[in-house]
């Protein structure tokens, strides 16, 4: 290398600068490397310790039988997975997860889009309305679960009394297996509507006005403009919202834990609750870890779909 460099310098004038530069550069570089490690190191270390390592540890736990207390853990191979997939409760949990996810993601997307379309009109007070709609998203899920337990109280709750105006007897909501899930979905949608509508609104405001003007010139009416301009322009955002909403409903724990504890008779027992219940209520570490792994594989699949889809559209560099 040095020889090649020398032979180059022999023919070109000003070579000494050429040689000196990389040297100084390397010095700066190595300093920058140290700084880089100092700056990024702590974050990376914490991620390795509390995110990446636990993932491996979780796999190990899923192959063991352990009550979190005894000093010995017993290796049982795939027994925990076999247990899960041969017992009805796990299929109930998977179905509940599906029901909860489709119900809450579907509702919050459709209602969120409608609210965004409304708040995109030139109405007075719309910014205040946007702030009010968004506020539940900021409130602790624990608090929301408690407030809505009161609202759903079958005798003295707000909903029971409002239904009473029309002479309708309120269902037992959280005490009834068939009503508990709809109730939980209503609460979850109420909390997250602000997020979906605010994101949709930002998407709507990013659509260039010329497109609408052009459509108008072509004689397109409101609905036609919605179909040919708004929807296609909004589809990347809608896709982003579908994926992030699915992932966040998978992780939605506080509202369910507080309102129903997964009941009645497992009617609202979703995967994340099952992971918690097996681990920290039943002290069955292996089964909890196995269920968590199933949850992770599902989430991973969905994230990969998102990545593949957004690859061309989003520039990360």
């Amino acid at each position: 290398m040095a020889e090649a460099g020398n032979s180059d310098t022999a023919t070109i004038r000003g070579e000494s600068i050429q040689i000196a530069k990389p040297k100084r550069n390397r010095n700066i570089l190595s300093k920058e490397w140290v700084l880089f490690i100092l700056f990024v190191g702590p974050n990376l270390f914490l991620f390795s310790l509390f995110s990446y390592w636990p993932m491996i540890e979780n796999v190990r736990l899923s192959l063991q039988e352990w009550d979190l207390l005894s000093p010995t853990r017993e290796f049982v191979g795939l027994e925990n997975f076999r247990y899960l997939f041969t017992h009805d409760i796990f299929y109930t949990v998977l179905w509940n997860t599906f029901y909860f996810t489709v119900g809450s993601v579907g509702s919050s997307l459709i209602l969120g889009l409608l609210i965004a379309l409304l708040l995109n009109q030139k109405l007075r007070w719309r910014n205040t309305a946007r702030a009010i709609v968004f506020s539940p998203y900021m409130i602790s899920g624990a608090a929301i679960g408690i407030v809505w337990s009161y609202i759903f109280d079958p005798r003295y709750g707000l909903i029971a009394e409002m239904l009473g105006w029309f002479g309708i007897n309120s269902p037992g909501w959280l005490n009834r297996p068939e009503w508990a899930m709809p109730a939980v979905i209503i609460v979850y949608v109420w909390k997250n509507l602000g997020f979906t509508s605010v994101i949709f609104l930002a998407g709507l405001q990013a659509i260039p006005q010329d497109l609408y003007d052009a459509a108008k010139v072509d004689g397109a009416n409101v609905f036609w403009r919605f179909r040919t301009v708004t929807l296609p322009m909004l589809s990347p955002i809608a896709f982003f919202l579908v994926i992030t909403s699915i992932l966040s409903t998978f992780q939605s724990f506080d509202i369910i834990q507080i309102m129903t504890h997964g009941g009645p008779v497992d009617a609202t027992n979703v995967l994340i609750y099952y992971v918690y219940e097996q681990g920290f209520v039943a002290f069955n570490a292996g089964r909890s870890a196995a269920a968590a792994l199933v949850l992770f594989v599902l989430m991973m699949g969905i994230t990969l779909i998102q990545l593949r889809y957004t690859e061309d559209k989003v520039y990360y560099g």
Partner: protein
Amino acid sequence: MADFSTNRAIVFQRSLGYLAMILIVLVIGVPIFWMLSGSLKTTQEIYSTNIQWVPASPRWGNYADAWNAAPFERFYFNSILITALGSSLEIINATLTAYALAFLRFPGKNLIFVILLAALMIPAQVTILPNYVFFGSTVFDLIGESWINTYQAIILPGASVAFGTFLMRQSFLGLPREVIDAAKVDGAGHFRILRDVVLPMGKPVIVTFALISVVAKWNEYLWPLVITTTQEMRPLTVGISYLFDAEGNNAWGVIMAATFFVVFPLLVVFMFAQRFIIEGLTAGATKG
């Protein structure tokens, strides 16, 4: 004629719009109002079968009763401590990592960026049990005492950031290059560039992320629920959940007052900062 009819159509459309807006605000607002009004109701008013929107004579005693029903001063202390330390660590980590990724040269930098981003895909729920085992057994094996039910165990797993790093890196890369180059020509080192150029210019995104982080820490539930074992260590969210389980449906007035303790600080933050928070989340979504 034509003008007149389109005007009428516009007025009609506007009225419909306002009507819909009022309806939505009511649907979202009434549960919050119901909490506030419930927190001031007497037992009699709560267990009457007529809707009492506004309590006839507010019973402030519910707040005193709630405060005495559980160690709320302790819950507040814990929530404030966990939020302050947790968010500070997150903000520092995010700023430094973002700066390094945006301005420092390092071999394999992109790989590191991807490793950080990929951590976003690891749900906290997959890590709670292993992390619990870590603070229980592993730490015990290493130093001879378990860290379960300690502040460091509540805070540390949440101290690393991917979302905030991503948000800030994007914003730092958008800063005008000339200003940074000018500072370099003046002989400024990276610490000075960070302090005098990047921090002041990147303030909006840092403030936004700080707010998002504070809200998330304050509301965190699952991890503090599993890692704390005594009342004295619990934050507000976990504290009221235990209170709710104990008092249940028998004292809605007191329970609503207790819930207000959790919600109140965030509603204040939100009133002043909602624009920042909404803009931050929107930017993260439309760019990411």
